[in-house]
Protein backbone atom coordinates (compact mmCIF):
# COMPACT_ATOMS: atom_id res chain seq x y z
CA UNK A 1 0.00 0.00 0.00
CA UNK A 2 1.28 3.48 -0.85
CA UNK A 3 1.92 5.79 2.09
CA UNK A 4 -0.09 8.78 0.89
CA UNK A 5 -0.25 11.82 3.15
CA UNK A 6 -3.82 11.11 4.40
CA UNK A 7 -2.87 7.50 5.24
CA UNK A 8 0.10 8.64 7.31
CA UNK A 9 -1.95 11.34 9.03
CA UNK A 10 -4.75 8.93 9.92
CA UNK A 11 -2.37 6.27 11.24
CA UNK A 12 -0.46 8.89 13.23
CA UNK A 13 -3.69 10.19 14.73
CA UNK A 14 -4.84 6.68 15.67
CA UNK A 15 -1.44 5.88 17.20
CA UNK A 16 -2.54 7.42 20.50
CA UNK A 17 -5.95 5.74 20.69
CA UNK A 18 -9.23 5.01 18.87
CA UNK A 19 -11.10 7.88 17.20
CA UNK A 20 -14.17 8.32 15.00
CA UNK A 21 -14.24 10.40 11.82
CA UNK A 22 -14.85 13.83 13.36
CA UNK A 23 -12.31 13.29 16.17
CA UNK A 24 -9.75 12.21 13.55
CA UNK A 25 -10.37 15.31 11.43
CA UNK A 26 -10.00 17.64 14.42
CA UNK A 27 -6.90 15.84 15.73
CA UNK A 28 -5.16 15.97 12.34
CA UNK A 29 -6.04 19.64 12.05
CA UNK A 30 -4.48 20.22 15.48
CA UNK A 31 -1.18 18.35 15.08
CA UNK A 32 -0.59 18.85 11.33
CA UNK A 33 -2.56 21.99 10.50
CA UNK A 34 -4.23 20.12 7.63
CA UNK A 35 -8.00 20.16 7.11
CA UNK A 36 -8.73 16.74 5.62
CA UNK A 37 -11.97 16.69 3.62
CA UNK A 38 -14.57 14.03 4.48
CA UNK A 39 -14.08 12.19 1.18
CA UNK A 40 -10.31 12.10 1.60
CA UNK A 41 -10.57 10.99 5.22
CA UNK A 42 -12.96 8.12 4.53
CA UNK A 43 -11.01 7.13 1.41
CA UNK A 44 -7.98 6.66 3.65
CA UNK A 45 -10.02 4.83 6.31
CA UNK A 46 -11.47 2.37 3.79
CA UNK A 47 -8.04 1.61 2.28
CA UNK A 48 -6.51 1.13 5.72
CA UNK A 49 -9.34 -1.15 6.84
CA UNK A 50 -9.07 -3.24 3.66
CA UNK A 51 -5.36 -3.63 4.29
CA UNK A 52 -5.92 -4.64 7.92
CA UNK A 53 -3.93 -1.71 9.32
CA UNK A 54 -6.93 -0.33 11.23
CA UNK A 55 -10.12 -1.94 12.51
CA UNK A 56 -13.58 -0.62 13.28
CA UNK A 57 -14.90 -0.72 16.84
CA UNK A 58 -18.59 -0.91 17.79
CA UNK A 59 -20.42 2.33 16.99
CA UNK A 60 -21.06 4.85 19.77
CA UNK A 61 -23.85 7.38 19.32
CA UNK A 62 -23.93 6.40 15.61
CA UNK A 63 -20.23 7.27 15.28
CA UNK A 64 -17.88 4.37 14.62
CA UNK A 65 -14.40 4.65 16.16
CA UNK A 66 -11.38 3.06 14.50
CA UNK A 67 -8.21 1.78 16.11
CA UNK A 68 -4.80 0.98 14.69
CA UNK A 69 -3.82 -2.72 14.50
CA UNK A 70 -0.42 -4.21 15.31
CA UNK A 71 0.35 -4.51 11.59
CA UNK A 72 -0.65 -0.87 11.07
CA UNK A 73 1.54 0.31 13.94
CA UNK A 74 4.51 -1.66 12.60
CA UNK A 75 4.07 -0.26 9.07
CA UNK A 76 3.72 3.29 10.39
CA UNK A 77 6.85 2.92 12.53
CA UNK A 78 8.86 1.66 9.54
CA UNK A 79 7.60 4.46 7.31
CA UNK A 80 8.23 7.19 9.88
CA UNK A 81 11.76 5.91 10.54
CA UNK A 82 12.54 6.14 6.82
CA UNK A 83 10.91 9.56 6.58
CA UNK A 84 12.93 10.74 9.57
CA UNK A 85 16.16 9.59 7.92
CA UNK A 86 15.26 11.36 4.67
CA UNK A 87 14.29 14.53 6.52
CA UNK A 88 17.52 14.53 8.52
CA UNK A 89 19.59 14.03 5.37
CA UNK A 90 17.71 16.77 3.52
CA UNK A 91 18.08 19.26 6.35
CA UNK A 92 21.77 18.49 6.77
CA UNK A 93 22.42 19.00 3.06
CA UNK A 94 20.47 22.25 3.04
CA UNK A 95 22.62 23.52 5.92
CA UNK A 96 25.78 22.61 4.00
CA UNK A 97 24.50 24.33 0.88
CA UNK A 98 24.64 23.09 -2.75
CA UNK A 99 27.70 21.12 -3.77
CA UNK A 100 30.26 23.14 -5.72
Amino acid sequence: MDFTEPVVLVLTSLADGPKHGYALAKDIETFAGIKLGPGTLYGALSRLEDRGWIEALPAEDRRRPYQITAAGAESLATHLATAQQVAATGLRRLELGPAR
Partner: protein
Amino acid sequence: MRPGTGGPRRSAGGSGRPWPAGLLLAYPADWRARYGGELELLISDLHDGGRKPVPMAFDLLRGAATAWLRTTRGSAMSERSRDALITVLWSWVAYAVTAAWFGHDLGIYPSRGAAQQIAVAHPVVPDAFHVLFAVGVVGIAVTGVAAVPFAFEAARYARKNRRSSTFGMMAVPPVVAVVWFAGLHFISSGSATTGRLTVALLWFLLGLAGIAGSTQAISKIVAATEFSRTTWRIGAGAAAAIAAAMLVGTGATIVWGLAFRASQVNSGDAAGWLGVTAIMSVTTARAVIALIGSRRRTVSPEPAVA
Protein backbone atom coordinates in the same frame (compact mmCIF):
# COMPACT_ATOMS: atom_id res chain seq x y z
CA MET B 1 -16.37 7.02 26.69
CA ARG B 2 -12.99 6.03 25.23
CA PRO B 3 -10.37 8.74 24.74
CA GLY B 4 -10.67 10.45 21.37
CA THR B 5 -14.12 9.14 20.61
CA GLY B 6 -16.11 12.14 21.78
CA GLY B 7 -18.45 13.87 19.33
CA PRO B 8 -18.48 17.49 18.20
CA ARG B 9 -20.01 20.29 20.23
CA ARG B 10 -23.54 19.57 19.10
CA SER B 11 -25.83 16.63 19.64
CA ALA B 12 -25.66 13.96 16.98
CA GLY B 13 -27.93 14.77 14.07
CA GLY B 14 -28.94 17.99 15.75
CA SER B 15 -29.03 20.06 12.59
CA GLY B 16 -30.35 19.58 9.07
CA ARG B 17 -28.60 17.53 6.43
CA PRO B 18 -26.05 19.72 4.60
CA TRP B 19 -26.37 19.60 0.81
CA PRO B 20 -22.92 18.03 0.13
CA ALA B 21 -24.23 14.87 1.83
CA GLY B 22 -26.37 14.33 -1.29
CA LEU B 23 -23.14 13.62 -3.18
CA LEU B 24 -22.86 10.32 -1.33
CA LEU B 25 -25.01 8.98 -4.15
CA ALA B 26 -21.96 9.34 -6.37
CA TYR B 27 -20.17 6.57 -4.41
CA PRO B 28 -20.40 2.85 -5.35
CA ALA B 29 -23.34 1.13 -3.64
CA ASP B 30 -21.13 -1.34 -1.73
CA TRP B 31 -18.91 1.42 -0.44
CA ARG B 32 -21.95 3.51 0.54
CA ALA B 33 -23.50 0.57 2.38
CA ARG B 34 -20.38 0.22 4.51
CA TYR B 35 -19.28 3.81 5.09
CA GLY B 36 -22.19 6.00 3.91
CA GLY B 37 -23.83 6.41 7.33
CA GLU B 38 -20.59 7.39 9.07
CA LEU B 39 -19.53 9.72 6.27
CA GLU B 40 -22.90 11.49 6.24
CA LEU B 41 -22.59 12.11 9.97
CA LEU B 42 -19.05 13.43 9.52
CA ILE B 43 -20.23 15.83 6.81
CA SER B 44 -22.89 17.14 9.21
CA ASP B 45 -20.33 17.47 12.02
CA LEU B 46 -17.83 19.32 9.84
CA HIS B 47 -20.58 21.57 8.47
CA ASP B 48 -21.69 22.43 12.01
CA GLY B 49 -18.03 23.02 12.90
CA GLY B 50 -17.77 25.71 10.25
CA ARG B 51 -16.41 23.84 7.21
CA LYS B 52 -17.48 25.44 3.93
CA PRO B 53 -19.76 23.20 1.86
CA VAL B 54 -18.24 23.84 -1.58
CA PRO B 55 -14.72 22.54 -0.78
CA MET B 56 -16.36 19.59 1.00
CA ALA B 57 -18.40 18.88 -2.12
CA PHE B 58 -15.29 18.84 -4.34
CA ASP B 59 -13.53 16.59 -1.85
CA LEU B 60 -16.47 14.19 -1.82
CA LEU B 61 -16.54 14.04 -5.63
CA ARG B 62 -12.84 13.26 -5.68
CA GLY B 63 -13.38 10.62 -2.99
CA ALA B 64 -16.21 9.07 -5.01
CA ALA B 65 -14.01 8.89 -8.12
CA THR B 66 -11.26 7.20 -6.11
CA ALA B 67 -13.75 4.74 -4.61
CA TRP B 68 -14.97 3.81 -8.11
CA LEU B 69 -11.40 3.35 -9.32
CA ARG B 70 -10.60 1.13 -6.35
CA THR B 71 -13.76 -0.90 -6.96
CA THR B 72 -12.66 -1.39 -10.57
CA ARG B 73 -9.21 -2.48 -9.48
CA GLY B 74 -10.75 -4.82 -6.93
CA SER B 75 -8.90 -3.77 -3.79
CA ALA B 76 -11.99 -4.14 -1.63
CA MET B 77 -12.49 -7.76 -2.57
CA SER B 78 -8.83 -8.70 -2.59
CA GLU B 79 -8.37 -9.67 1.06
CA ARG B 80 -11.31 -12.12 1.07
CA SER B 81 -10.30 -13.61 -2.29
CA ARG B 82 -6.66 -13.86 -1.29
CA ASP B 83 -7.24 -16.15 1.71
CA ALA B 84 -9.75 -18.28 -0.19
CA LEU B 85 -7.45 -18.76 -3.18
CA ILE B 86 -4.53 -19.80 -1.00
CA THR B 87 -6.75 -22.30 0.86
CA VAL B 88 -8.09 -23.75 -2.41
CA LEU B 89 -4.55 -23.97 -3.81
CA TRP B 90 -3.25 -25.98 -0.85
CA SER B 91 -6.37 -28.17 -0.80
CA TRP B 92 -6.07 -28.84 -4.53
CA VAL B 93 -2.38 -29.74 -4.33
CA ALA B 94 -2.97 -32.18 -1.44
CA TYR B 95 -5.98 -33.63 -3.27
CA ALA B 96 -4.11 -33.98 -6.57
CA VAL B 97 -1.14 -35.76 -4.98
CA THR B 98 -3.48 -38.19 -3.17
CA ALA B 99 -5.65 -38.78 -6.25
CA ALA B 100 -2.61 -39.31 -8.47
CA TRP B 101 -1.15 -41.87 -6.07
CA PHE B 102 -4.50 -43.67 -5.74
CA GLY B 103 -5.61 -43.33 -9.33
CA HIS B 104 -2.50 -44.32 -11.26
CA ASP B 105 -3.23 -48.01 -10.85
CA LEU B 106 -6.93 -47.83 -10.08
CA GLY B 107 -7.88 -49.44 -13.38
CA ILE B 108 -6.18 -52.63 -12.32
CA TYR B 109 -6.77 -52.38 -8.55
CA PRO B 110 -6.37 -54.76 -6.75
CA SER B 111 -5.88 -56.83 -9.91
CA ARG B 112 -7.09 -56.78 -13.49
CA GLY B 113 -9.41 -59.71 -12.72
CA ALA B 114 -10.95 -57.99 -9.69
CA ALA B 115 -11.45 -54.77 -11.64
CA GLN B 116 -13.28 -56.69 -14.34
CA GLN B 117 -15.42 -58.44 -11.72
CA ILE B 118 -16.46 -55.08 -10.27
CA ALA B 119 -17.27 -53.75 -13.71
CA VAL B 120 -19.46 -56.80 -14.42
CA ALA B 121 -21.18 -56.76 -11.00
CA HIS B 122 -21.82 -52.99 -11.05
CA PRO B 123 -22.04 -51.83 -14.66
CA VAL B 124 -23.52 -48.43 -13.73
CA VAL B 125 -20.64 -47.51 -11.41
CA PRO B 126 -18.47 -44.90 -13.10
CA ASP B 127 -14.93 -45.83 -13.86
CA ALA B 128 -13.13 -44.00 -11.04
CA PHE B 129 -9.81 -44.18 -12.85
CA HIS B 130 -11.08 -42.24 -15.85
CA VAL B 131 -13.03 -39.80 -13.68
CA LEU B 132 -9.95 -39.04 -11.57
CA PHE B 133 -7.87 -38.73 -14.72
CA ALA B 134 -10.37 -36.22 -16.14
CA VAL B 135 -10.41 -34.32 -12.81
CA GLY B 136 -6.62 -34.13 -12.92
CA VAL B 137 -6.57 -32.87 -16.51
CA VAL B 138 -9.27 -30.24 -15.79
CA GLY B 139 -7.62 -29.12 -12.55
CA ILE B 140 -4.11 -28.82 -13.99
CA ALA B 141 -5.39 -27.03 -17.11
CA VAL B 142 -7.45 -24.55 -15.09
CA THR B 143 -4.55 -23.94 -12.69
CA GLY B 144 -2.20 -23.35 -15.60
CA VAL B 145 -4.53 -20.93 -17.38
CA ALA B 146 -5.25 -18.95 -14.18
CA ALA B 147 -1.55 -18.84 -13.30
CA VAL B 148 -0.70 -16.76 -16.38
CA PRO B 149 -2.39 -13.46 -15.37
CA PHE B 150 -1.33 -13.94 -11.72
CA ALA B 151 2.31 -14.49 -12.72
CA PHE B 152 2.25 -11.56 -15.14
CA GLU B 153 0.80 -9.15 -12.57
CA ALA B 154 3.00 -10.45 -9.76
CA ALA B 155 6.09 -9.81 -11.91
CA ARG B 156 4.90 -6.32 -12.80
CA TYR B 157 4.07 -5.53 -9.15
CA ALA B 158 7.44 -6.89 -7.99
CA ARG B 159 9.34 -4.82 -10.55
CA LYS B 160 7.40 -1.67 -9.68
CA ASN B 161 7.91 -2.13 -5.91
CA ARG B 162 11.43 -3.57 -6.21
CA ARG B 163 10.55 -6.89 -4.56
CA SER B 164 13.29 -9.15 -5.85
CA SER B 165 12.18 -11.92 -3.47
CA THR B 166 9.02 -12.33 -5.58
CA PHE B 167 11.10 -13.28 -8.62
CA GLY B 168 13.01 -15.78 -6.50
CA MET B 169 9.76 -17.38 -5.35
CA MET B 170 8.43 -17.44 -8.92
CA ALA B 171 11.46 -19.49 -9.92
CA VAL B 172 10.85 -22.17 -7.28
CA PRO B 173 8.17 -24.31 -9.08
CA PRO B 174 9.93 -24.56 -12.49
CA VAL B 175 13.36 -25.14 -10.94
CA VAL B 176 11.97 -27.85 -8.63
CA ALA B 177 10.20 -29.53 -11.58
CA VAL B 178 13.28 -29.51 -13.83
CA VAL B 179 15.63 -30.79 -11.10
CA TRP B 180 13.21 -33.49 -9.96
CA PHE B 181 12.42 -34.85 -13.44
CA ALA B 182 16.11 -34.78 -14.37
CA GLY B 183 16.88 -36.80 -11.24
CA LEU B 184 14.05 -39.21 -11.99
CA HIS B 185 15.40 -39.78 -15.49
CA PHE B 186 18.84 -40.52 -14.05
CA ILE B 187 17.48 -42.89 -11.37
CA SER B 188 15.22 -44.86 -13.72
CA SER B 189 17.85 -45.26 -16.44
CA GLY B 190 19.84 -48.03 -14.71
CA SER B 191 19.00 -51.51 -13.42
CA ALA B 192 16.81 -51.93 -10.33
CA THR B 193 19.20 -52.56 -7.45
CA THR B 194 18.39 -52.18 -3.75
CA GLY B 195 20.50 -49.04 -3.50
CA ARG B 196 18.82 -47.51 -6.52
CA LEU B 197 15.37 -48.30 -5.08
CA THR B 198 16.33 -46.55 -1.83
CA VAL B 199 17.46 -43.51 -3.79
CA ALA B 200 14.19 -43.64 -5.75
CA LEU B 201 12.18 -43.64 -2.51
CA LEU B 202 14.18 -40.67 -1.18
CA TRP B 203 13.73 -38.89 -4.49
CA PHE B 204 9.98 -39.47 -4.28
CA LEU B 205 9.90 -37.94 -0.77
CA LEU B 206 12.01 -35.02 -1.97
CA GLY B 207 9.49 -34.56 -4.76
CA LEU B 208 6.69 -34.24 -2.20
CA ALA B 209 8.77 -31.68 -0.30
CA GLY B 210 9.36 -29.84 -3.57
CA ILE B 211 5.63 -29.74 -4.29
CA ALA B 212 4.98 -28.34 -0.80
CA GLY B 213 7.78 -25.77 -1.21
CA SER B 214 6.47 -24.68 -4.60
CA THR B 215 2.94 -24.30 -3.22
CA GLN B 216 4.26 -22.25 -0.32
CA ALA B 217 6.19 -20.00 -2.71
CA ILE B 218 3.06 -19.40 -4.82
CA SER B 219 1.00 -18.73 -1.67
CA LYS B 220 3.54 -16.13 -0.52
CA ILE B 221 3.39 -14.39 -3.91
CA VAL B 222 -0.41 -14.31 -3.81
CA ALA B 223 -0.34 -13.00 -0.23
CA ALA B 224 2.11 -10.18 -0.99
CA THR B 225 0.86 -8.89 -4.35
CA GLU B 226 -1.93 -6.45 -5.22
CA PHE B 227 -3.83 -7.95 -8.17
CA SER B 228 -6.46 -6.34 -10.40
CA ARG B 229 -10.17 -7.11 -10.09
CA THR B 230 -10.08 -9.02 -13.37
CA THR B 231 -7.30 -11.26 -12.11
CA TRP B 232 -9.14 -11.95 -8.85
CA ARG B 233 -12.20 -12.89 -10.89
CA ILE B 234 -10.14 -15.27 -13.01
CA GLY B 235 -8.75 -16.76 -9.80
CA ALA B 236 -12.21 -17.10 -8.26
CA GLY B 237 -13.54 -18.79 -11.43
CA ALA B 238 -10.59 -21.17 -11.54
CA ALA B 239 -10.98 -21.98 -7.83
CA ALA B 240 -14.69 -22.71 -8.33
CA ALA B 241 -13.94 -24.99 -11.31
CA ILE B 242 -11.25 -26.84 -9.36
CA ALA B 243 -13.55 -27.26 -6.32
CA ALA B 244 -16.28 -28.64 -8.60
CA ALA B 245 -13.82 -31.09 -10.17
CA MET B 246 -12.69 -32.14 -6.69
CA LEU B 247 -16.31 -32.80 -5.70
CA VAL B 248 -16.85 -34.99 -8.78
CA GLY B 249 -13.59 -36.89 -8.18
CA THR B 250 -14.37 -37.48 -4.51
CA GLY B 251 -17.88 -38.66 -5.37
CA ALA B 252 -16.56 -41.06 -8.00
CA THR B 253 -13.96 -42.46 -5.59
CA ILE B 254 -16.59 -43.01 -2.88
CA VAL B 255 -18.95 -44.77 -5.32
CA TRP B 256 -16.11 -46.92 -6.65
CA GLY B 257 -15.03 -47.90 -3.14
CA LEU B 258 -18.56 -48.83 -2.09
CA ALA B 259 -18.92 -50.95 -5.20
CA PHE B 260 -15.55 -52.54 -4.50
CA ARG B 261 -16.63 -53.46 -0.98
CA ALA B 262 -20.03 -54.70 -2.19
CA SER B 263 -18.35 -56.96 -4.75
CA GLN B 264 -16.53 -58.71 -1.85
CA VAL B 265 -13.57 -59.29 -4.11
CA ASN B 266 -11.04 -58.38 -1.47
CA SER B 267 -12.56 -56.23 1.24
CA GLY B 268 -9.28 -56.22 3.20
CA ASP B 269 -7.78 -53.82 0.66
CA ALA B 270 -10.49 -51.26 1.31
CA ALA B 271 -8.50 -49.66 4.16
CA GLY B 272 -6.41 -47.74 1.60
CA TRP B 273 -9.58 -46.53 -0.04
CA LEU B 274 -10.92 -45.27 3.29
CA GLY B 275 -7.76 -43.25 3.93
CA VAL B 276 -7.71 -41.81 0.42
CA THR B 277 -11.41 -40.97 0.59
CA ALA B 278 -10.91 -39.22 3.94
CA ILE B 279 -8.10 -37.03 2.56
CA MET B 280 -10.05 -36.23 -0.61
CA SER B 281 -13.20 -35.41 1.38
CA VAL B 282 -11.38 -33.14 3.83
CA THR B 283 -9.49 -31.23 1.13
CA THR B 284 -12.63 -30.86 -0.99
CA ALA B 285 -14.61 -29.61 2.02
CA ARG B 286 -11.87 -27.09 2.86
CA ALA B 287 -11.87 -25.73 -0.68
CA VAL B 288 -15.66 -25.45 -0.86
CA ILE B 289 -15.95 -23.81 2.59
CA ALA B 290 -13.21 -21.31 1.70
CA LEU B 291 -14.99 -20.37 -1.52
CA ILE B 292 -18.36 -19.96 0.21
CA GLY B 293 -16.74 -17.89 2.98
CA SER B 294 -15.08 -15.58 0.46
CA ARG B 295 -18.44 -14.66 -1.02
CA ARG B 296 -19.88 -13.50 2.30
CA ARG B 297 -19.51 -9.87 3.32
CA THR B 298 -17.09 -9.39 6.18
CA VAL B 299 -18.90 -6.33 7.57
CA SER B 300 -22.56 -5.57 8.00
CA PRO B 301 -23.98 -2.55 6.20
CA GLU B 302 -24.44 0.56 8.32
CA PRO B 303 -28.00 1.63 9.05
CA ALA B 304 -29.01 4.69 7.04
CA VAL B 305 -28.70 8.00 8.86
CA ALA B 306 -31.90 9.98 8.91
